[in-house]
């Protein structure tokens, strides 16, 4: 039989193309209006220059967007998502074709004719089956296994959105199968089932010699498909599934300046003169940050990896996005409604996103390393902290160290004059303090911790010994050195950051050196990425690796013996600066070393609870210290020595070894100390 084409079948007397036109027009008009309202909010937001370096951005869109690069970090869910995404790509052409067929029964996309068209039709049919199966697996996975990372603690009613969307997509696939299956049955060419498995499968359930039913299924399936299609399209921007539209632009506009913090306000001549410093409300965020909120897919990978979330602090990065998006949808609705009494409104920063959440973040960057669509959190959190700090609302435990930095240039409250006191303990050689105008090859930036914390002074001395033994020409700033300001900036006290960094920059500029070297990744990061003037700075692990690869230093395995070693990646060395290999290569040059990686290593490393000023931060919500969690991870793989390359990781983990009662069973040591002790 010849099946009735949808375009030829009038509906309630009206010609089908007219109906198709009305549906198309109304849907697209509504969609454009919603998109306009959503994007209008971005126009009201703070500026953010995101049009630099277009080639890199395109590459990112290709890699992380179309290439789904980060999806397989969660293998099962990642594969499902890749299949679904590929399905969307393939079926988009099909959808366009079907829309056209409402107007003309023979509509074709140019190129998709003849054998290419046949091949596409076949591919599409396979895709329909795959997508339907993926949707069913996803529904079962959610409904039966309830993965914890999909929860929305504190806000109700978001879980159903996933079912709506999965249901709509399944309905699209099923209606497509009904539409094509009825034609397949009517045509009677059953030999082609392996080309069109979806149609063939659907046709099994249909009568073969009942033209009326087949016509009804064919035309009805068509219109149902069209309605589901436009329903889905219009549901996207009003739900969490906005990411289907915004994710690729979001990746394109992602942050290219890793390791640093955005200025208080882009384009401001003097931020100190602004009416407000930091972010207190939705439109105080930059447009890109609001795009982030829109784009979050609620997948929970960020929070699943967030150390603050893991140990029970109030913070879940995903919920920052979810709550801000809810706030945006409520306060910038699609249709204007009478606004509520502002006095009883909950504030976005303070009430909805609480101070506890804002201060709980260690700025470790695990969330940003994990997010498949490169959503940013650190800049947002720092922007909110800037607002709180400007109002004086800083946790008591952090106030004293900040004030000490203001007064004395270090959080320890120690006298400036004692900054180089550690050098007196070294008997074998003298450490030179570089005077203005003098030159040395290396300027050793000790930072406050290395100068004043007795435990960290041991690393300082080890490092000086390594450099002296290898006849490197190095010197320190002594009294002229100030705190690097890495955490000062990340706690939102931009003015103080400018003060301490400015003093360091002045001191650097008045002296001549080839490179700055630091063993504290926080100082390394601040000088490298935050300081407005470019200075060449390397981390101790890089210097050590350089010495080893030039063959000037040889190591022995006596100190380690046959103990099992693992390496803990410090956040500010690994994630923020991409230095993963040098410390590992240095370690592996120790003869006879037994080495094992922890599950959470490289970009998935687990923060020890933060460096610099965060050493003073007291959190009341956490049930366990992050360092304790880390020690357990190391013990699980049978490690007896944790090597790290950050003094704060060392302190936190050393404490945790004691509090978990594992003294004697496992030791933590800085790479610098280990190399010092393993030098023959």
């Amino acid at each position: 039989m010849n099946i009735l084409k949808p375009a030829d079948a009038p509906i309630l007397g009206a010609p089908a193309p007219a109906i198709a036109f009305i549906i198309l027009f109304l849907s697209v008009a509504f969609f454009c209006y919603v998109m306009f309202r959503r994007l209008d909010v971005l126009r009201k937001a703070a500026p953010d220059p995101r049009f630099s370096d277009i080639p890199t951005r395109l590459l990112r869109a290709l890699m992380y967007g179309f290439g789904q690069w980060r999806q397989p970090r969660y293998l099962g869910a990642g594969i499902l998502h890749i299949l679904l995404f590929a399905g969307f790509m393939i079926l988009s052409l099909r959808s366009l074709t079907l829309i056209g067929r409402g107007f003309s029964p023979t509509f074709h996309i140019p190129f998709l004719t003849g054998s290419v068209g046949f091949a596409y039709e076949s591919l599409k049919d396979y895709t329909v089956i795959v997508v339907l199966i993926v949707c069913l697996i996803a529904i079962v996975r959610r409904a039966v296994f309830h993965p914890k990372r999909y929860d929305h603690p504190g806000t109700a009613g978001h879980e159903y959105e996933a079912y709506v969307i999965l249901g709509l997509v399944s309905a699209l696939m099923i209606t497509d199968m009904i539409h094509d299956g009825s034609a397949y049955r009517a045509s009677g060419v059953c030999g082609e089932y392996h080309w069109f498995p979806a149609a063939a499968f659907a046709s099994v359930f249909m009568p073969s010699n009942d033209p009326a039913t087949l016509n009804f299924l064919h035309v009805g399936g068509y219109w149902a498909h069209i309605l589901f299609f436009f329903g889905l399209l219009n549901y996207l921007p009003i739900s969490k599934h906005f990411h289907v539209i915004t994710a690729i632009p979001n990746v394109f506009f992602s942050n290219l300046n890793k390791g640093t913090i955005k200025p208080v306000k882009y384009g401001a001549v003097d931020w100190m003169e602004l009416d407000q410093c930091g972010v207190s409300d939705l439109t105080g965020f930059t447009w890109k940050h609001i795009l982030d909120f829109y784009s979050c897919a609620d997948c929970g990978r960020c929070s699943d990896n967030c150390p603050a979330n893991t140990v029970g602090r109030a913070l879940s990065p995903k919920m920052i996005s979810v709550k801000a998006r809810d706030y945006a949808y409520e306060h910038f609705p699609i249709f204007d409604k009478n606004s509520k009494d502002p006095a009883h409104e909950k504030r976005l920063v303070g009430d909805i996103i609480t101070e506890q959440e804002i201060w709980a973040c260690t700025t470790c960057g695990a969330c940003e390393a994990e997010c498949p669509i490169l959503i940013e959190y650190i800049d947002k959190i720092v922007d909110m902290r800037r607002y709180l700090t400007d109002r004086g609302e800083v946790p008591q435990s952090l106030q004293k160290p900040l004030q000490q930095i203001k007064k004395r240039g270090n959080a320890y409250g120690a006298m400036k004059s004692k900054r180089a006191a550690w050098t007196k303990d070294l008997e074998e050689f003298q450490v030179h303090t570089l005077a203005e105008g003098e030159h040395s090859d290396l300027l050793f930036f000790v930072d406050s911790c290395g100068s004043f914390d007795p435990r960290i002074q041991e690393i300082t001395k080890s490092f000086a010994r390594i450099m002296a033994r290898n006849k490197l020409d190095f010197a320190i700033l002594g009294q002229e050195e100030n705190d690097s300001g890495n955490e000062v900036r990340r706690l939102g006290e931009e003015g103080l950051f400018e003060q301490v960094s400015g003093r360091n920059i002045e001191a650097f500029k008045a002296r001549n050196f080839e490179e700055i070297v630091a063993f504290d990744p926080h100082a390394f990061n601040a000088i490298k990425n935050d300081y407005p003037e470019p200075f060449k700075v390397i981390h101790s692990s890089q210097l050590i690796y350089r010495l080893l690869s030039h063959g000037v230093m040889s190591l022995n395995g006596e100190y380690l013996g046959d103990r099992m070693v693992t390496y803990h990646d410090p956040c500010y060395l690994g994630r923020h600066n991409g230095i993963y290999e040098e410390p590992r290569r240095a370690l592996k040059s120790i003869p006879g070393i037994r080495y094992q990686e922890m599950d959470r290593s490289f970009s998935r490393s687990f923060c020890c609870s933060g460096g610099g000023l965060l050493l003073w931060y007291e959190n009341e919500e956490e049930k366990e210290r992050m360092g304790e969690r880390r020690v357990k991870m190391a013990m699980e793989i049978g490690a007896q020595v944790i090597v790290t390359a950050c003094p704060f990781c060392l302190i936190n983990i050393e404490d945790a070894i004691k509090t978990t009662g594992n003294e004697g069973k496992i030791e933590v040591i800085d790479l610098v100390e280990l190399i010092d002790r393993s030098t023959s």
Partner: protein
Amino acid sequence: MNIIVCMKWTPDTSEADLTVSAAAKDIKKDDLDFDMNDWDRFAIEEAAQIKEKVGGKVTVVSLAPEESEDMLRECLARGADEAFQIWSDQMEGGDGYATASVLSQFIKGRPHDLILTGTLAEDDGAGQLGGMLAAMLDIPSATLVSRIEIKGQKASFVRELEGGLYESMEMDLPCLIAVATGLNEPRFVSIRAVRKVTSIEIPNVGIDEIGIDAGKVGQSGARVEIEQVSLPPEGEGAEIIKGKPEEAAARLAEILKEKGAIG
């Protein structure tokens, strides 16, 4: 509501090696950093919070040399409306009584409903000023206050007593309240907050402006004479344990055992 907060400028001795001056009447202060007395930090915060609640004007005053301007500016950033720095060279060497005389003379001339100060100062810890100042102004006073509420023309407040007891009381305004630490959570003062108040002038007031007799200030106005300041003697039985941490710990355990503190 006119609130006057009296601030003290005290040396920060926390990380310093203390030495006694040649005349043995004081410690050597040349190398010490000075800062706001921590107790007074709670007083200025309380003043700012009361002002936020019931309105009014907060005036801070300190009897301290010029370098204390930073502290006074910080008070402005914390919410004070005006600040006065009282100093004349003759004021050197005063005690609590001399200071109270100057402050009372200064305060008498201006409207005051509530006077706030810290109960103690970190340096001498004498705790005299509040009581004497109130007596000179002839107003009621209370010390170690851990909560304040202004109700019309009365101040109701809570005092913390030994053994965790609380005492609630009420006084008529004007009155003086010397606060305990911890009665509020003092705000943080950012660099920008201080910069915002740089244009406010902090007048310097001397004996002439206050109208007080030179004989009543400084050393000549003091009623207490310090005989001698000394470092605690290294008492018998006091032993500074030297060496590496492990050795030190072993030695400590040994001593504790010897003395029967641990079995």
